[in-house]
């Protein structure tokens, strides 16, 4: 497998900005991403969305070009300019045909370094977000995911939606975005990741041409790395949506940070629990045996600070309590009795066998390089990735499941019709009824 791993080249500029690149031969494509290693976790309290709105605002005009002109120029190359914040980082990306590499690199530099922050665009952005967030209220899956996040983390940095919250939209203003930009967009916390059909020396040449002098602002906020002091109390919560025919169900407790030494054993244990599709215990029980749902998944959100561990599913409302009970039973079983040798071997061979598929496209390679840089995994991470997975013993996987799964600490949120599911839920324990959206 090692022979398939593309080498990552790295160049450090005196300003602290880093270039990481991979030469990619499969199709004449190039993916260029500017990653600022601060994201939605830096949004001020009550001002959800500042990091993400700032990212989008960079695409709404530069010192030289209007929104329309910029969009015309980019799209006339068939390229796609995208900008978004996530927790832990903000990404401004330009992808297009490799033949257009010089102009794409120049354009991305212009967008990041010389945003116009045109005042007239702010009310338009505000109205677009209001429309988008209002529309999301009609999607029960979105409602459940967003409400669970807020319920679980409260005011903590991972507790609000990245794209903003409807309730606090009107508190945001352009000054929030410009001050965020001036503070967080600093060369010392920024990396460029370039994957495409362009030789590394040419990439370096263009990066030096367009980025060497850029220092940006700063000092950037301190990296957020600690678990919040308070979380929601474990238990059952219900948001009544009488018009729904199914219940959306979210369960979760606090997970681990990305740098935790149990990352690999826990990833494997969780594949067996609920991330491995039809190979997972949750899918086998809730879907294949009982036919209660179309899909169920568990996931550890590994971030710089501990992210949540979540289980996501839905079921016809009449089955709600039974599904919650069954899920907890499966989690308890994996926590108490561990996984089998065959399950572990299958999980390991899945990840090892699946690894080459992540090398097919420039975008999937770029995503891996971005994660390597963001979480300081080391430039040789991909070279040793399969070894590390294969080195996990049955005891290590069992221990990880035992240590990091906490069925008694699960916060359970149901978004569904109370008249069909409340009584059954009450048989499981006290239910807190939530108000609002």
């Amino acid at each position, binding site marked *: 497998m090692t022979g398939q791993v593309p080498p990552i080249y790295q160049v450090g500029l005196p300003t602290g900005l880093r270039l990481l690149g991979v030469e990619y031969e499969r199709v004449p494509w190039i993916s260029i991403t500017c990653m600022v290693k601060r994201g939605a976790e830096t949004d001020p309290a009550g001002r959800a969305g500042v990091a993400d709105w700032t990212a989008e605002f960079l695409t709404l005009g530069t010192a030289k070009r209007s929104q329309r002109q910029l969009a015309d120029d980019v799209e006339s190359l068939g390229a796609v300019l995208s900008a978004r914040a996530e927790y832990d980082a903000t990404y401004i990306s330009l992808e297009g045909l490799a033949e257009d590499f010089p102009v794409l690199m120049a354009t991305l530099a212009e967008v990041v370094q010389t945003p116009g922050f045109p005042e007239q665009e702010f009310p338009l952005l505000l109205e677009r977000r209001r429309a988008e967030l209002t529309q999301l209220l009609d999607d029960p899956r979105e409602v459940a995911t967003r409400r669970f996040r807020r319920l679980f983390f409260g005011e903590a940095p991972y507790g609000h939606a990245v794209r903003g919250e409807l309730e606090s939209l009107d508190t945001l203003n352009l000054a929030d975005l410009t001050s965020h930009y001036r503070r967080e967009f600093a060369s010392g916390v920024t990396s460029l990741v370039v994957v495409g059909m362009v030789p590394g020396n040419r990439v370096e040449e263009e990066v030096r041409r367009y980025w060497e002098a850029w220092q940006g602002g700063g000092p950037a906020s301190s990296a957020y790395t600690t678990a919040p002091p308070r979380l929601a109390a474990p238990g059952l919560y219900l948001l009544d949506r009488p018009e729904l025919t199914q219940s959306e169900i979210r369960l979760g407790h606090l997970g681990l940070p990305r740098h935790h030494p149990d990352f690999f054993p826990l990833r494997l244990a969780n594949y067996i629990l609920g991330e491995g599709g039809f190979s997972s215990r949750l899918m086998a029980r809730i879907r294949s045996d009982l036919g209660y749902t179309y899909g169920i998944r568990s996931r550890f959100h590994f971030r710089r600070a501990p992210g949540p561990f979540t289980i996501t599913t839905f079921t016809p409302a009449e089955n709600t309590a039974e599904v919650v009970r069954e899920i907890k039973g499966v989690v308890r079983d994996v926590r108490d009795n561990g996984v089998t040798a065959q399950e572990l071997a299958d999980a390991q*061979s899945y990840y090892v066998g699946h690894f080459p598929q992540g090398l097919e496209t420039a975008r999937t390679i770029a995503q891996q390089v971005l994660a390597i840089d963001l979480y300081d995994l080391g430039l040789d991470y991909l070279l040793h990735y399969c070894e590390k997975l294969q080195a996990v013993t049955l005891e290590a996987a069992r221990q990880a499941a035992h240590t990091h799964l906490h069925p008694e600490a699960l916060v359970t949120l149901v978004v569904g019709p109370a008249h069909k599911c409340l009584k059954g839920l009450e048989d499981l324990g006290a239910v807190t009824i939530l108000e609002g959206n």
Partner: protein
Amino acid sequence: MTLPAALDPSTWNPALNIVSYRLDNGLTLMVLPDQSVPVVSLQMHYHVGSRNELPGITGISHLFEHLMFRGTEELGPEEFARLLQAKGGEINAFTTKDHTSYFENLPSEHLELALRLEADRLSHLKLDDENFQTEREVVISERKLRSVDSPFGLVEEQLYSTAFTQHPYSWPVIGWDQDLRRMTLTDCLAYYRTYYHPGNLTVVIAGDVVPESARDLVDRYFGNLSSPGSPVFPKITEPPQRGERRAVFKKVSQVETLVAGFHTVGLDHPDIYPLTLLSVILSVGKASRLYQEFVRSGRVADLEAYLAPPPWSSQDPDLFVFRAVAAPGTDLARLEVDVWDSLERLRKDGVEKSELARAKKILKAQTIQGLAKNFFRGLLVGLFHMKTGDAQRVNHILDFYEAVTQDDLVRVARQYLREDNRTVVTLKPVSAIESEALGPLA
């Protein structure tokens, strides 16, 4: 500067090498060799979708797709997926109006295992009542997810059932709720015998494989299977629409929405290319017409003009769909007038040369980007073959787009995007109490 050949875009050849075989039992095999990454995409395309269904058993194609994972004489439920996932495989399937496709993207060393298991479930599927009942419940849950509780699922179903009066595109791929509940195991057995055999199957293998070896493997596992020949299904043509149709759908919603559809053409018709370019000009990207006129200002939460591009376009004539989600405070009736006015300007004045050039470049870039994936390459070839009988079109797709002129765009806009050919469904928000009074959603 001289570039290494592998990193010189000008030396890249986009043509796919397609090696085709046909077994004696009618099975078609298409191999797309590419040794650059040690993976293959194995795709089993059965030429049956919701267009082959009948009233009363709508949704059977999709339900049957689920049953294909429920085990064989040799394997237990879902063991098919588990065995191949354990080899690193990405396993899934999807059902459309025109076909049902199963795929395994996996390390090339496990291709033989995947073929053996695919042949096993084609010939020895375990169709019993327990599996059927369990999977029916799963599909009913999926229908609630995708249609009943989703923001616009039932509204879009209403659009198709209003626009199509005779053609099977009038019902959703997932089927009507009462048909899913009414269907029997006997229906599924009859369906299996009619449509699941080598004569109705196209196998595509894209990736790290030698064509002759692939043919030998397919022959080893599928060559002995019998086939009654290609199924015969009557060609159903939707009569021309002779006047606008309108419907209202009331449900609990935060936003007012309209979906509208214009009857157009199927994949085999040359107008599919200008129509696809038109959809790009209208709503792909932030320089597009509809984005600039309606989305940028926040007047709509979403506005899309969509026609699935080749080869994802439907086999028979389908709808060119507009979906407009009004922002809070936007008057939907006024919005609709303005959207059709915008379309009228296009029909009257045509498009700018730069708009057409932009659309062509976007489609070229999307195609080239997609060609990085064996899965995408395989789909391009398999879908063109099944729906048009001509897989080689994949190697001319960019030429077809390039040949389109500004006049072509005006012509198709005038021919298809006209009021008499239009069906409009509006979503009217009601309270939960009003919704309940209207009866159950299904």
